[in-house]
């Protein structure tokens, strides 16, 4: 069974962390993954850096720019992850933008993911219509879970569509923003979290954007199966270094 599906079945709230591959140094990928697993993180989004990350705020933009300057490429990342399943058994998701995947070749990319043991893909700029028309069959052929986003502005009708098209979990963007733009939740978020929770969707939801500490993690996981932290983790690494992963995880739970 796909590791994401097994993980979603566990009776616990999931903590998932995002980091940009190639940041702060090109060869940090495997080391950061090992620390994340050892610190009890449930799932990881490995960010494939892109020159023009439209959905990201300054923190992830900056980490992507540095990662690219460090020489990170799709091929390099795949090489770094070649033996990842010898040591890492938590679910791994590749998160990035669609153009690098398109250039690598969508089928070749998916085949490589399967070979390495990647469980899922998040491509924010590959929306439902384009995915279903041209790429769904390829993703499924290689056993990859594709994760769609929903936002506070997504209509109930479209949420149902996305729920139907999903095969793992739904990434619930907490507010109308790019990554790392908000701090803390207010009534707008709890109303939205409650609305989605009351829809009783087939697929579990994991909340991301705006989770940056223990209290926002707790609020998010009151309503959802788990939460994803990205920008706050990158900021922590920027300040305390790539060896300080456990220290960050301990502040969350």
């Amino acid at each position: 069974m796909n590791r994401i599906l097994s993980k979603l079945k566990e009776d616990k709230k999931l903590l998932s962390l995002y980091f940009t591959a190639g940041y702060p140094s090109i060869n940090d990928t495997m080391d950061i993954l090992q620390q994340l697993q050892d610190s009890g993180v449930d799932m990881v989004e490995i960010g494939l850096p892109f020159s023009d990350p439209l959905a990201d705020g300054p923190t992830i933009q900056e980490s992507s720019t540095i990662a690219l300057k460090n020489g990170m490429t799709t091929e390099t990342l795949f090489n770094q992850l070649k033996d990842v399943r010898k040591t890492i058994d938590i679910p791994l998701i590749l998160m990035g933008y669609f153009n690098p995947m398109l250039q690598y070749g969508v089928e070749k990319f998916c085949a490589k993911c399967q070979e390495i043991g990647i469980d899922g893909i998040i491509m924010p700029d590959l929306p439902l219509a384009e995915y279903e028309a041209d790429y769904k069959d390829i993703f499924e052929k290689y056993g990859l879970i594709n994760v769609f986003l929903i936002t506070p502005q997504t209509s109930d009708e479209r949420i149902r569509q996305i729920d139907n098209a999903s095969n793992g979990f739904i990434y619930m963007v907490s507010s109308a923003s790019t990554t790392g733009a908000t701090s803390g939740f207010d009534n707008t978020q709890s109303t939205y979290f409650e609305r989605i929770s009351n829809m009783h969707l087939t697929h579990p939801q994991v909340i991301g954007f705006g989770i940056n500490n223990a209290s926002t993690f707790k609020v998010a996981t009151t309503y959802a199966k788990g939460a994803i932290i990205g920008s706050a983790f990158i900021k922590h690494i920027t300040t305390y270094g790539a060896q300080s992963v456990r220290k960050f995880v301990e502040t969350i739970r």
Partner: protein
Amino acid sequence: MNTKDNIHQDISYQADERGYYGDFGGAFIPEMLYPNVEELRSQYIEVMQEPSFQKEFHALLKDYVGRPTPLYYAERFSKKYNAKIYLKREDLCHTGAHKVNNTIGQILMAKRLGKNRIIAETGAGQHGVATATVCALMGLECIVYMGAIDIQRQAPNVARMKMLGAEVRPALSGSKTLKDATNEAIRDWINNPVNTHYIIGSVVGPHPYPDMVARFQSVISEETKKQLHEVEGRENPDYVVACVGGGSNAAGLFYHYLDQNEVGIIAVEAAGKGIDTGESAATSALGKEGIIHGSKTLLMQTSDGQITEPYSISAGLDYPGVGPMHAHLFRSGRGEFISITDQQAMQAGLELSKLEGIIPAIETSHALAIFEERKFSPEDVIIINLSGRGDKDLNTYIDYFNL
């Protein structure tokens, strides 16, 4: 494989339901933008076809923009190159370029969608000025994103936008030019999903933008057909010629000729310092299929899919992609693509100034320079889109020629 002639007969040059021109187009947008883009997609054609919209749009084009713009027979220029060359005088539009045709259309669209906050991106500042202008006209809040480097390079246009009441926000990410200004405008839209309309300045971006902007700009070829008929007794020239960055002035001039196969379509790209120098913006020659700003198109990028920085002396052609309609014209063979270097363009700009008393924008100068690259017969009727006036480029011309 079809022969080129068969392709010409069988295929469409208009966007299909999903916003595709052949292999290019679509809407590769994050879900955060979906409600905005979908609202526009589901309504734009209906809104544009409303009689009240058409009436207001055409009244403003006539009384405010100054349309129809003349179709001018350039006698001395024609004589020099031994062909019948007409110039479509978009430089005479209010604000000095064709850009305002689109911003008038989109501001009326924004009002009908109930939006009260307008954002735009700009490179050289022409689209920013055209957007600030219509926002002043309609009393709407206007925020223009402009690369920090372009803000320094284009001080007069920055001042114009401010005088018109717009806020100019520097894009500080990436290379701090047009591509990055567009990224920042898109990020703004993600953060302001309810009250804001994004006025994209060219036939780029996610569906329905390329089609909507092409329709607003199509007034150029609509007029040209009538005007040419009056002077030549026929609506169709032998060639239509326009410069292409994103490609909005070209889309406007080509629009009503796309299905007229006897009309040759010539798109002129900026070769910069030369196609093989690494400092170029000739997307059809250097680009590969890719995704930029929500659209699948030809795109200058690394083998790893990172978008690269283009170069041209003209800020308006300095874009690593091209509108999906043009990518389709290129791949299908319907359009002929020619690239012109900085030097050729600058010479052509100077030449038109001296032969016809018209100082063209450097973007436009690229289209005027094709006669050095391509021969025509003396009977050929050629229409060149004189997309903008050169006032904004005076400093560049002065520095280049030591005037």
